[in-house]
């Protein structure tokens, strides 16, 4: 897929922005706008995922060893509960994705959520960095496009006279 980047990369063509015409510049800007929007959306969903992993990790802190046998209410639906007892406080079952669930002990589960939070945070940082780079290019494109429009306007009265 086509990539736009300020830093030179293998297999990428360097294009002098000033050599493009206004139409090309505007379609380039449109493409960048779309990408930036997508980044914003992705950041939002990543933030949500980060929050979910964090709460799950924090909930683990509440399951302590001596809570075994403790009474609790288990939600069957959003509004219906049945009484139950905590049977196993050493292990939890974690949804790892694609419908697979894995049993882990409390420490392992904490480690899992910590790793996930770290992973998601890293992805967010990457996207933020990319977003910054792309907005810089977008600003440059707008600047050049404005310059070109000005030049055109200056040329037009000459042609008419």
């Amino acid at each position, binding site marked *: 897929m086509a990539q736009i980047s300020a830093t030179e990369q293998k297999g990428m063509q360097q294009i002098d922005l000033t050599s493009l015409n206004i139409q090309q510049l505007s379609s380039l800007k449109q493409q960048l706008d779309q990408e930036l929007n997508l980044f914003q959306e992705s950041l939002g969903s990543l933030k949500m995922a980060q929050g979910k992993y964090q709460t799950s990790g924090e909930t683990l802190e509440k399951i302590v060893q001596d809570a075994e046998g403790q009474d609790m209410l288990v939600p069957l639906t959003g509004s219906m509960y049945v009484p139950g007892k905590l049977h196993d406080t050493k292990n939890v079952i974690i949804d*790892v994705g*694609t419908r697979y*669930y*894995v*049993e882990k002990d409390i420490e392992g589960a904490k480690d899992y959520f910590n790793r996930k939070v770290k992973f998601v945070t890293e992805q967010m940082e990457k996207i933020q960095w990319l977003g910054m780079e792309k907005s810089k290019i977008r600003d440059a494109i707008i600047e050049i496009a404005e310059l070109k429009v000005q030049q055109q306007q200056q040329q037009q009265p000459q042609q008419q006279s």
Partner: protein
Amino acid sequence: MSDDIQRKLQNELDNFKKTQKELQKTIQNRQQLDGQLNENELVKQELDLLPSDGKVYKSVGPVLIKTELVEAKHNVSKRIDYINAELKRVDNMIITLEKNQDGHREGLQKLQHQFQQAQVKAALHA
């Protein structure tokens, strides 16, 4: 003359729009596959971290069914292979569609040019 060009122009425009729509759909498909690949790879990493006697469950509808770790690993690897093959297929499709789109775009530009020239001619004769 100008009617003829106009009809061709409309025809080409329809074709262009059709390819554009198809391309968008294919790209969406690709993004979905990409997401699935990512998810499966994360699951694989997680399964690889488990000790060999680790307990794995698979959710089938509302129940969790215990699965052998080896079997789960095998299933996930197979799915990753399948998704990779699908990705390759979709990538090729995107390349062809992009080529088609460029062809239609060029045709459109040519026809537009012809149309304008015909109009200028008509204006001169009038």
